[in-house]
C-alpha cells in the first residue's frame, strides 16, 4: 500500500484545518421532515452520501426482498445523525466515514462509491475484521456503528416492516401455536 498517499488523503479528510468547518457542518440542522426523510440533508457531501448508500446496501443487500437503499436507510442515517444524535456521536460517525473513503482513495485511487461491488464488499469485510489501518479498532468501531444504524433504519422502515417482515396491524385473534413456516420471518406491529 502507498502509505504516503494514504496519509495525505487521511489528513485531507481529518486535517486540523478541516476540524472547524467539519464541526460546523456536523452541527448544522438538516431541514428534513422527521417522518418522510427527503434525503436532501446537509450533513454529507455528494461523495459521502453515495458511499454511505453503498455501505448500507452491502450490510443489508437486495435479495428476495429490497435492500437498504430502496428502504431509504441512507436518508434515515443522515437525518438521524443530523437531527437526533448528540454531537460527539455524529462526529465519531462522520470521522469513520471520511476515513474509509480516504482509505479507498489511497488504496484504489478511486471514490468508494465508484468501486465495483466485489471490491466494496472486500473493504467492508476489512472494516468488519478490524483490518483498516489508522482507524479506531481497525475500523471495527465504525463498522458496528454503521451496522447498528443500518439495521435500525432498515427494520423500522416501511419496507423492513411490511416486505421483509410481515406487518400485522389488526391481528383480530391470538394463536399461541402458530407455525413459523407459514411466514418464515417475524411479525411487526
Amino acid at each position, binding site marked *: 500500500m502507498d502509505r504516503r498517499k494514504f496519509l495525505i488523503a487521511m489528513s485531507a479528510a481529518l486535517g486540523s484545518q478541516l476540524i472547524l468547518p467539519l464541526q460546523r457542518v456536523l452541527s448544522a440542522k438538516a431541514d428534513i421532515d422527521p417522518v418522510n426523510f427527503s434525503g436532501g440533508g446537509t450533513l454529507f457531501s455528494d461523495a459521502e452520501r453515495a458511499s454511505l448508500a453503498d455501505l448500507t446496501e452491502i450490510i443489508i443487500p437486495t435479495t428476495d426482498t429490497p435492500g437498504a437503499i430502496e428502504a431509504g436507510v441512507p436518508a434515515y442515517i443522515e437525518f438521524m445523525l443530523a437531527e437526533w444524535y448528540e454531537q460527539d456521536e455524529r462526529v465519531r460517525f462522520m470521522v469513520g466515514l471520511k476515513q474509509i473513503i480516504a482509505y479507498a482513495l489511497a488504496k484504489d485511487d478511486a471514490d468508494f462509491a465508484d468501486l465495483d461491488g466485489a471490491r466494496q464488499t472486500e473493504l467492508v469485510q476489512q472494516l468488519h475484521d478490524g483490518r483498516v489501518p489508522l482507524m479506531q479498532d481497525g475500523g471495527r468501531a465504525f463498522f458496528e456503528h454503521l451496522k447498528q444504524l443500518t*439495521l435500525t433504519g432498515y427494520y423500522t422502515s416501511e419496507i423492513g416492516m411490511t416486505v*421483509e417482515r410481515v406487518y400485522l396491524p389488526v391481528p383480530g385473534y391470538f394463536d399461541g*401455536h*402458530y407455525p413459523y413456516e407459514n411466514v418464515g420471518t417475524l411479525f411487526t406491529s
Partner: protein
Amino acid sequence: MENDFEFDAIVVGSGPTGGWAAKELTEKGLKTLILDRGRMVEHSIDYEFEGTPVYDMPYRGKWPPGLQEKYYQQWPANPWTYNYWNDDTRFPYINDPEKPFMWARSGAFGGKSIVWGRQTYRWSDLDFKANERDGHGIPWPVEYADIEPWYGYVERFMGVQGEARGLPQLPDSEFTGQVPLNFAEEQFKREVEGKLGRAITVGRTMNLMEDRPEQGRGRCQFRDQCGNGCSYGAAPSTQATTLPAAQKTGNLTIRADATVAELLYDAERQRVAGVRVIDTNTKEETLYRSRIVFLCASCLGTTHLLLNSKTEAMPRGLGNTHDMVGRHVMDHLFGVGATGTLPGHTHLMEYGRRPASLYIPRFRNIDAQPDEDADFIRGYNYQAWGGGRSGPQDYSGFGASLKAQLRVPGAWRLPLHGFGEVLPYHRNRAYLDETRTDDLGLPLMRFDVEWGENEKKMAKEIAAEAVRMLETAGFVDIEVRETMGTPGEGIHEMGTARMGDDPTLSVVNKWNQMHEAENVFITDGAFMTSAGTVNPTMTYMAFTARAADHAVELMQSGQL
C-alpha cells in the same frame, strides 16, 4: 369569581373511578359536573398515535429531541402516549433522592383509564380480613359479601376476560371470553400445576371480548395498542365506557383543563359547599357549588386536594384533624421476578398480540398466617407480560446471511413479574412542601415512603419461587431479578385517606363518606385500608358504584 353554577354532584377526576361516579350519579338523575385537570381527549379522535407503525412515527419511534424532558418524571410515557401524561415542567413533584418515590400522573381527561394495565381481580375475604387478622393497620369495615354484587355490576358493564377457577383466594369474575395462553405458558401451567399443585391461569383483564353495538364498543383485535388509545373501545377507557353512558342521560357537564385547587368547607354545616377550580391553561378561577362531591382524583391527587383545603376549622386540611390524610401510602411490591427460556419448539410462534398473559394467583399464607415455613405475612402473585418468542439472536456478520439470520426469532421466553402486598405503615406519607409551588401556585407534593422488613423478606421469596417454578417447568437460562422496585413504581398507590369505623383513625366510613364532611365521598385508591395482593382498580370501581348508590339514597331520604 364569576360563573357560579349549581350542581347536584361534582366529580373530581375522570379516570376509572371518576367515570364510574359520573355514570352512576347521572343515571340516578343527578345533575353532575365532572372535572379533570388534564387536556380533553375525545374517544378515538384524540388518540393521536393509535395504530401508527414505527415507520410512520417521527424519529421512527424515538423521542423527538427535547420532548421527553417535559415528561421527565413520567417513566411510563413514550412517543405514542406522551399526550396522556403529566407535564412535569409545569407540575413536578419533589423527589427526594435519599428516599425516591415514583409518581405516575395523568395529564389527560380520562386519567389513567387510558393507559392502565387493565389487570382485573376480585378481592376475597383473605384480603378484607388481613388487617384484622394480623393487626397491621385498622380493620376494614366491609367484607367480600358487601362488595360482591358490585363487582358483578362493574364486570357486566365493562367486560372482563379470564378463566373461572373457583379459587377461594381469588373469586371468579363474571367473565366475557378468555384470552388463550401461548405454547410456553401451557407447558409451564401443565408442569407447575402437576408438580407443585399451584393454580395457573390466564391474567384477568378488562378487555372486551365481544361486540357490543349498544355501547358503541367492539371486541379486542389483539393489537397490543391499549395504552395508545383504543378506538374499538375494547380497552376500558372512561371515554369508551362510562362517559358515553353518563352523557346519554343528559345530566352530565364536562370540563377538562380544570384543576381543583381546593374544597370549600362550610364549618357551620360541616359540609363542603363546592370547589375552587383553576383553569390549567388560562389560570382563571371559577367556583362550582354542589350538594355532594366525589373525589376520584387518584389517590395522590385526592391527598393533595384534601391537604390543600385548609380552613380555620381544619388547619391541617380537610378531614385531617387526626393526621390521617396522606399517611399509610401503599403500593404493590414490584420489580422482582425471573425470566426463563423454554428449549426447542421453535417451529411455533405467536400470531397476534394479547392484552393478557399467564397469571399465577396467590398461593402463599392462605390457610395459615403465615405458613409454617414463611418469614413474612400476606401474599403475592405473578403476571407474565412480555413473553413469547424473543427477538432474533444471531446478529453476526453482514450481507445476505445477516438478513437471513434476522428472519429467525429467538427462543420461547417466559418472564414472571411478582406483585406483593405492602403493609400500611403510619410513617409512609405524602405531604405538601411548605414553600415550593407548581405553575398554578399550588404546593408541590413530596413523599416519605420506604419498604419495611416484611416487604424485603417477601421480595426474596418472590424471586426464589419464580426461579423454582421455572426450573420445575423445564425452563433454562433463568435470569433472576432481585432488586425491589421503587415505591410508587407499581402505580398502585393507595391508602392515604383510609376507610374505617373509627373517625380518629380513618378518613372515610364504610360508604366511602368522609367522617368530617359527610357530603364528600372518596372512591379512588385513597380509601384503601390495606393493599391486598391483587391489582386494585376494579375494586375502586366497585366501591365507587356502591358509594354512588348510597349517596343517592341519602339524598333521596333527605339526609344529604
